[in-house]
């Protein structure tokens, strides 16, 4: 309506509509400007001061490790070079960049202040604002096909990419899929390469080529790698169980954990991420909430870095040489926590139902979209794929089958609203014994667990979330024995507690500046 009013006003004033409502030209589409912004920000100082050293400066979206290319330009702080690049690009110093973010924490607000100062120093003005309401729509609205005008109104968006599979860092740049990166045939070819093989060495080469390409064009300006911090009380002994990416599922050996008995002589452990109104289903965030972590099993298991390592519900599995089919042979005698048998039918039903769920984890969605046929033969599940999915095994190490007999007939769109999520039945080493919604959930070992009965006698989970202020209160009061956080402030407080230990873990979680590179930006 505003636009119509503007057109009418422009006509009345005998102006062309272009003058009244021109989409503004975007100088960020010039890669020299993006490089200048990267040079202008002193991330080393920001990490040392704002983040108290509890983050790692990023030189690529891909985290450090075997998939990282050598010799990338780290864009170390160089304001002179930034000014020179801006001058060369003819930067208009009067324009003010609109920088948006969606986090509500103080650290983000402080980071915005720092960015504003650094950019201002080289002649780039910016304002910042927190997105409210339909954040997804404001960040991700796609431009009309074939246009060079973005549908989003911001210049730069600060955000994170937390990847389950490394392809997630780059798949979103595909032509027609990004709200801030115009289509590019060369980039599409690189994306096809990282998705086109399940051979790890070939994948590494493809990723490294992609990183070198992105290191110049800077679709995102990578800022830092967020670390995850696992905390434990001195009551807990993992007995050799490994540490890893706690946001997902890996073989942490919880069956063998032991706890120092409490005053009643019972081995009880306390944790958080219990529900306040309903248990969150595990097909969006497969490993964040306590029920998903200890109450559900998967076909395969993974190590701390989420590399699949073997069967969990599956006794064995076999992948065809061309990667286009896989079969899982389920262990004998598997049961759900309610005593009903866990069969291949449950797995097939779960996969077929998950395909219809809005907001399904994107790695799962890619795997399931590629499935051309799925069938069961006794305890064996056979899956064929129409195209290769490099993350197929990863998916089956994170995707938890759910009981068909309790959920059959559910409308996938209203999956989370099903009464099942008030007191769910799982297949993992611990089962729910008592739900006092919004007070606590009590888990006890599942006596028929295929991997042996857990030694810890009880786990009590409170509804305090991953990053909320109750972590410190509860830990101080001895009501928190294990969990994880990404909050730097929490980590500092936890480290000061004698009875708590903190173990940092590197995870694929990169914070970056998404740069709107379309030639024009909608007003």
């Amino acid at each position, binding site marked *: 309506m505003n636009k119509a009013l503007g057109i009418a006003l422009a006509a009345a004033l005998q102006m062309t509509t272009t003058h009244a409502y021109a989409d503004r030209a975007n100088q960020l589409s010039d890669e020299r400007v993006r490089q200048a912004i990267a040079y202008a920000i002193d991330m080393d100082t920001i990490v040392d001061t704002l983040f108290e050293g509890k983050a790692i400066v990023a030189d690529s979206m891909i985290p450090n490790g075997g998939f990282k290319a050598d010799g990338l330009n780290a864009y170390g702080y160089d304001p002179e070079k930034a000014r020179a690049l801006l001058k060369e690009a003819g930067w208009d110093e009067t324009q003010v960049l609109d920088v948006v973010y969606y986090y509500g924490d103080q650290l983000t607000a402080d980071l915005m202040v720092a960015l504003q100062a650094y950019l201002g120093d080289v002649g780039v003005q910016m304002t910042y604002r927190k997105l409210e309401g*339909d954040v997804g729509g404001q960040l991700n609205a796609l431009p009309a096909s074939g246009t060079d005008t973005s549908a989003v109104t911001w210049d730069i968006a600060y955000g994170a990419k937390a990847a389950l599979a490394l392809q997630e860092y780059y798949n979103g740049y595909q032509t027609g899929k990004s709200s801030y990166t115009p289509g590019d045939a060369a980039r599409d070819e690189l994306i096809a390469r990282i998705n086109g093989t399940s051979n790890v060495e070939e994948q590494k080469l493809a990723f490294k080529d992609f990183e070198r390409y992105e290191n110049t064009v800077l679709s995102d300006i990578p800022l830092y790698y967020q670390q995850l911090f696992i905390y434990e009380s001195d009551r807990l002994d993992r007995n050799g169980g490994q540490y890893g990416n706690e946001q997902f599922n890996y073989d942490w050996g919880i069956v063998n954990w032991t706890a120092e008995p409490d005053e009643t002589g019972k081995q009880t452990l306390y944790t958080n991420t219990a529900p306040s109104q309903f248990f969150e289903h595990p097909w969006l965030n497969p490993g964040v909430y306590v029920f998903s972590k200890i109450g559900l099993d998967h076909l395969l298991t993974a190590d701390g870095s989420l590399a699949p390592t073997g069967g969990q519900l599956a006794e064995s599995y076999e992948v065809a040489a061309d990667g286009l089919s896989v079969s899982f042979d389920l262990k004998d005698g598997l049961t759900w926590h309610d005593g009903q048998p866990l069969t291949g039918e449950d797995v097939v039903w779960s996969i077929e139902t998950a395909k219809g769920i809005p907001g399904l984890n994107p790695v799962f969605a890619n795997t399931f979209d590629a499935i051309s046929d799925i069938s069961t033969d006794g305890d064996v599940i056979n899956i064929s794929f129409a195209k290769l999915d490099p993350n197929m095994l990863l998916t089956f190490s994170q995707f938890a089958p759910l009981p068909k007999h309790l959920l059959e007939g559910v409308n996938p769109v209203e999956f989370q609203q099903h009464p099942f999520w008030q007191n769910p039945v799982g297949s993992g080493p611990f089962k729910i014994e008592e739900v006092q919604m*919004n007070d606590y959930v009590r888990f006890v070992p599942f006596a028929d667990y295929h991997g042996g009965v857990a030694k810890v006698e009880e786990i009590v989970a409170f509804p305090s979330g991953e990053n909320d202020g109750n972590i410190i209160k509860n830990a101080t009061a001895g009501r928190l024995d294990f969990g994880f956080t990404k909050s730097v402030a929490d980590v500092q407080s936890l480290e000061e507690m004698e009875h708590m230990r903190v173990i940092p873990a590197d995870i694929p979680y990169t914070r970056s500046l998404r740069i709107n590179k379309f030639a024009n930006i909608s007003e």
Partner: protein
Amino acid sequence: MLTFIIRRLLIVIPMLLVISFLVYLGLELTPGDAVSHMIDPEAASQMSPAQFEALREALGLNKSFLERYATWVYNMLHGDFGRSLSGGVPISEIFLDRLPATLELSFLALLFSTVIGCSLGTISALKRGTATDSSLTVIGMLGVSIPEFFFGLVSILIFALHLRWLPVGGRLMPGYETFLDRAPHIILPALVLSLMMTAGVMRYSRAAMLDSLSREFIRTARSKGLPEWRINFVHGFRVALTPVVVLIGFRLPTLIGGSVIIEEVFQWPGIGSEFIGAVRGADYPLVMMIALFSVFAVLMASLIVDVLTAIIDPRVRLS
């Protein structure tokens, strides 16, 4: 009086309708809807517009504002309070689960504030102009002016974390069976919640007591040679109690709203903490019911106070 009560009850109906419409409109004007809060931005970027539309349709969010409001009113009138959009839980169940926690916290806070406030106010009035009166006045002012979340955090620090006399928060722990098991959990939040109200009751009862003590019937009682405690506490205090009862009556429903912050600080699983979550998630059926319940409680309290005042004070006529 019966006519008065019926008339007041009838007035409540249009008032509730108008207020519910305004709350609904307010929610409509806030950016985003329940779907935009349900799906995090990263996941949303992977969803197609058709998936969003399907989700909105399933939750009835694709209808116009007036259609949704009319449906909500119709369902309400038929006893269907609806379901929470985020988890699909019937709102009646949420109320049954959460309301007892809020009510027990509020009533205990009311009890604390009434007993402590009336006692200190009476002492202050009887010791008028002394150091005790001045000290209590200062304490009262501090109680009113310091925010309750601050008191809450400080009390947790001292009594739960340092002295370890009381639990850090929560309402239930495994194995609790009786109210006595739970009692340690409610002491701190109830005391902190009562603090601001205690100061108000204290100031109010002091003024009422001073007014009462200056009346002629007190002089008459003294001339009859009654003992001083009887004059103060039987004759003076009873008369002073009337305006204090009115004040407490009006404060009762506001305690439910006032417990929102305390419930957050003490991880108390009441209707207040549920309300915060519902507002953040644009869960409009839940927000509407909690808001409406609070409004209804205020209107009913107002009616009850009017009736009680008329019963206590024969000079008051209900018309």
